[in-house]
């Protein structure tokens, strides 16, 4: 077999696939952050912890109730979403009249508490979560080997991201959401219950994080620190895409995952920082982000 730019194709496509997988998680998580920021003006630092919680809920469901991967894919996000609604109702909603910074501090504190509790209970080594039987094995594509589960994660993430985009940009419900993001007072005057919309939006954004956690469990193992490892990169993705932009979060998430993968092939030393370099450049040239509108 030949080479592409002097790189064996196995290595190139292997890294690109890894980049796509990471990109799937970046996209799902930054999408949830974007939805939450748009509606609540809260930078949800607890997002990584709630992603971790999603993986743990799936693991609990499997080990205590015997509920497998496929039902967990639905049940775990619902449980995480319900937990998010509880957080919004009891804590976050008290902060809307204050500066954004208070929401950030509160969610940062929540993340530390949630992760601290899990580390206390489960230590910092991961628990394995089996790949569901239907997705074991893989395909030999000739130029590379494609594990079925990884292909599924990319497709599932893409479908969920595009469905969310459609819901927000193309439906009546999404129009309420966009309008309330711009001018909540006037939307209320039209007779729409904006406080309930805010609560449900937070629940939905957080449920996306929970879903990402379930998808991640068979790949990364279930680990109390899995969220904090990921969330810093995800925040960089959100900043690059532009706060609050839905399509921006999706495109930037997948794009930066791929960029990271490419960097691993061509200049591995930079692969850990390439996203932050991009972030710095974007902030210098376009402070509102690639897809963001100046506020």
């Amino acid at each position: 077999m030949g080479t592409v730019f002097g790189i064996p194709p196995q290595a190139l496509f292997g890294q690109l696939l890894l980049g796509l997988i990471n990109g799937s998680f970046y996209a799902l998580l930054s999408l949830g952050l974007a939805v939450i920021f748009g509606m609540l003006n809260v930078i949800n630092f607890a997002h990584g912890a709630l992603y971790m919680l999603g993986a743990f809920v799936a693991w609990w469901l499997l080990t205590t109730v015997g509920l497998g991967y496929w039902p967990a894919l639905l049940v775990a996000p619902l449980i995480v979403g319900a937990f998010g609604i509880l957080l919004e109702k009891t804590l976050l909603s008290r902060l809307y009249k204050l500066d954004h910074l208070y929401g950030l501090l509160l969610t940062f504190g929540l993340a530390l508490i949630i992760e601290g509790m899990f580390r206390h209970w489960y230590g910092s080594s991961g628990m394995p979560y089996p790949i569901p039987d239907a997705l074991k094995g893989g395909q030999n594509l000739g130029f590379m080997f494609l594990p079925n589960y990884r292909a599924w994660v990319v497709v599932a993430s893409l479908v969920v991201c595009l469905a969310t985009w459609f819901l927000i940009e193309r439906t009546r419900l999404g129009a309420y959401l966009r309008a309330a993001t711009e001018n909540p007072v006037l939307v209320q005057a039209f007779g729409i219950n904006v406080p309930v919309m805010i609560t449900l939006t937070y629940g939905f954004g957080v449920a996306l994080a929970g879903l990402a956690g379930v998808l991640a469990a068979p790949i990364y193992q279930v680990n109390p620190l899995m969220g904090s490892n990921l969330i810093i990169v995800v925040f960089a993705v959100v900043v690059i895409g532009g706060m609050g932009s839905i399509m921006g979060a999706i495109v930037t998430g997948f794009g930066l995952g791929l960029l990271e993968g490419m960097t691993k092939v061509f200049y591995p030393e930079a692969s850990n920082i390439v996203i932050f370099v991009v972030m710095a450049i974007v902030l210098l040239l376009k402070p509102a982000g690639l897809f963001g509108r100046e506020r």
Partner: protein
Amino acid sequence: MPEAMLETPMLEIKDLHAYYGESHVLHGVTLSIPAGEVVTLLGRNGAGKTTTLRSIMGIVPRAEGSIRLQGKELVGLAPFRIGRLGIGFVPEERGIFASLDVEENLMLPPQVQPGGLSVAEIFELFPNLKERLRSQGTRLSGGEQQMLAIARILRTGARLLLLDEPTEGLAPVIIQQIGRVIRTLKEKGFTVLLVEQNFRFAATLADRHYVMEDGRVVDMIPNDQLEAKMDQLHERLGV
């Protein structure tokens, strides 16, 4: 007292006080609007006209006193509940949403009561909007945005319309068109509370005028006495 005043008015405000933080903006506004009338609030900038409308919608930080819609008390209700009782609101800044296209803006306010205008009837009143449905809401001209802001509350079944300076900054030909629309709405039985600086425009439509000064209603002028009170009004409005 005219006969209509003996029935339950569409809107009745008694001793309304409103506050923005520490500043006391309305000092006991009292007025009454019978169903089917077009009534204007006249007054200088800062007299409290906009705050009166915002108090009716429940979107000032603090309001005290009584605001009754067909006898039902509004003060203290959550803003979205007031919107559902059938009041259509066009804010001074028009409130067209930039992230929605014209059609989405038009269809945004939910129907709260039967009896709203159909989309076809709305396009008859505002033919320009029909050709711009796919445009971003804020790409419309100022006049078209004003028409969209009025159009979208006509679908909802609201019978009381609060219009805050619908003619502000618009060309005379557009102002005439908006005037025709308001007359048509009156013929269709809508009740309209109109905030205006332009009382020549107001005089062509309204049944009565309330004059506001320093957060109070200082005079009520039936439209047929407007001519006689012109000098006094000029002085009050500083025009």
